[in-house]
């Protein structure tokens, strides 16, 4: 607490770690922290391929650090792609030249409902993709962990299962063969627990659990609690017990904040759209921003198509609505578009830097 008091007195020249700490505490720092969730796009900074970014820990770490320095982010959020966990269960993955890795949907690991029972628990610290991710995160923590919060990333069990069964089949199986689906979810969760623990042991500031199906773009809120909320709860407990921050990401339409809070109780929630119960950012802040830090929610299509000036305007609008009283990190609603120019990511940082000056001009 002493450290925080000192920080409060020197908050016109804060370092990223200090800025984020103050924000999480519910104070306004020198400016709103920014996290551009740059993943695949960071490979453009060092010129590596999507495959190298997904599979070569040292190259990916270097790209993430280089991009972080160019953009000026406050949080290192090393997401790679959503196929990491599924690949290590044995799902065949395609690594295209020009886009992010994805499962081979013509050759799903779980072809029939009987296959749900064939998944087996393994040690993710020794499996190819997950150990590569752990290695990459270790490099980031070692190189940057004292200056920047480094966040580990775990894809939630229902999402991982979708990468092995195909989302359409999985969603129908949830209604028709719920018990078989749950057998697979139990096994996946066991592996994710070990994976989460391994990430926490690296000294990350937090671990983000992605609950993509927790929205109207996914399953119903009741089904989400039953088929994912119940399973992510122990992941949240592991993260908290390790002294790390529980972070949640969900980029679907009308996300289930209430249910996610009940099951995962995240300290930070990253989102792309407002939950159905909130009309705007102000309501969101009132309803959820008192005990959770809100991270979002510049639309990725603006980041892809918009000009830096449009990004600055949009960022200011969001800071106006959600930034007051801390507990807000300006970020895209989802991964920064993988083939996009990073100039618009930089524009978000510039927007946060200029915002206090803009307020001064307005008040004059």
């Amino acid at each position, binding site marked *: 607490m002493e450290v925080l008091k000192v920080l409060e007195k020197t908050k016109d020249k804060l370092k990223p770690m200090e800025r984020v700490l103050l924000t999480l505490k519910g104070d306004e720092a020198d400016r709103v922290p920014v996290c551009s969730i740059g993943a695949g796009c960071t490979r453009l900074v060092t010129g590596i391929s999507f495959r190298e970014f997904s599979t070569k820990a040292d190259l990916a770490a270097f790209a993430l650090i280089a991009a972080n320095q160019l953009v000026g982010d406050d949080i290192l959020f090393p997401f790679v792609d959503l196929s990491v966990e599924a690949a290590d269960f044995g799902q065949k993955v*395609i690594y*295209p030249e*020009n*886009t*992010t890795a*994805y*499962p081979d*949907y013509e050759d799903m690991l779980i072809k029939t409902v009987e296959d749900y029972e064939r998944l087996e628990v393994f040690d993710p610290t020794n499996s190819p993709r997950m150990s590569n991710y752990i290695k990459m995160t270790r490099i980031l923590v070692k190189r940057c962990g004292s200056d920047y919060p480094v966040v580990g990333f775990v894809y939630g069990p229902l999402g991982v299962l979708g990468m092995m069964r195909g*989302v*359409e089949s999985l*969603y*129908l199986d*949830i*209604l*028709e063969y719920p018990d078989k689906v749950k057998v697979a979810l139990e096994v996946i969760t066991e592996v994710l627990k070990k994976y989460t623990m391994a990430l926490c042991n690296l000294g990350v500031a937090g671990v983000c659990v992605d609950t993509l199906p927790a929205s*109207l*773009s*996914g*399953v*119903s809120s009741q*089904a989400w609690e039953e088929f994912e909320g119940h399973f992510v709860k122990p992941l949240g407990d592991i993260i908290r017990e390790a002294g790390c921050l529980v972070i949640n990401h969900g980029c679907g*339409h*009308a996300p289930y904040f209430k249910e996610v809070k009940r099951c995962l109780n995240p300290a930070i929630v990253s989102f792309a759209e407002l939950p*159905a119960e909130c009309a705007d950012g102000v309501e969101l802040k009132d309803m959820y921003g008192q005990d959770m830090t809100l991270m979002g929610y510049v*639309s*990725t*299509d603006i980041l*892809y*198509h918009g000009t830096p000036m449009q990004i600055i305007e949009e960022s200011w609008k969001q800071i106006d609505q959600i930034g007051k009283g801390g507990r807000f990190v300006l970020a895209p609603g989802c991964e920064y*578009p*993988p*083939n*996009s120019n990073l100039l618009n990511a930089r524009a978000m940082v510039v927007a946060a830097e200029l915002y206090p000056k803009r307020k001064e001009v307005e008040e004059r």
Partner: protein
Amino acid sequence: MSHLQELMQSLRTFEKETFKKGMSLVIKNHEPQEIIDQIFTPGLDETRNRYYQGEIAIPELLLSMQLLMDLLSHLDIKQVGRKRGNNKIVLGVIEGDPHDLGKNIIKRMYECYGFQVYDLGKNVFINNFAEKVRETKPDVVGISTMMSTTVSKVSKAIELIKMESSSVNVIVGGAFMTAAVAEDIGADAYAESAAVIIEETDKILNKTK
């Protein structure tokens, strides 16, 4: 409760086995047109409305459409009046994108409402859209993408489609699409979700009548 009411109830509660049993009884005891008017059409409209209102999510929407299409396959379509039998739609997910859940939902929705659908599948090369337009002369082409990395290809596909036929309408959708992006890349319309696809399609069809 009548057989028809029981069938409607099992559709509302997503009880597949009950629906299938009830379906046999209804088919045996009712005329196809009556089934269309009292189960198929209201069931479809109600399901779509519940999805639009956020009362049900994608799994329930998928199952309902599956059940209704199953029901329809047991009826003699020629005997019953279906709307929009003459409207043709070419559908596909753009080259480089393997995500076809959204496209498949849209396909089912179109089929349920009586459109004739030519499904090109996923990861469709841009030339194939134009070739299918030449071959089938559709009213609408629907292109989906869930990724930012493939948006430029959607734009190129629209260009080729319009070169093939300036009168065909292109409607786009997917996680990365918005009305602004749709306009930017030259599409005629944008559909935010399966809940509004029929209205959006009707709008562009009415415009070109």
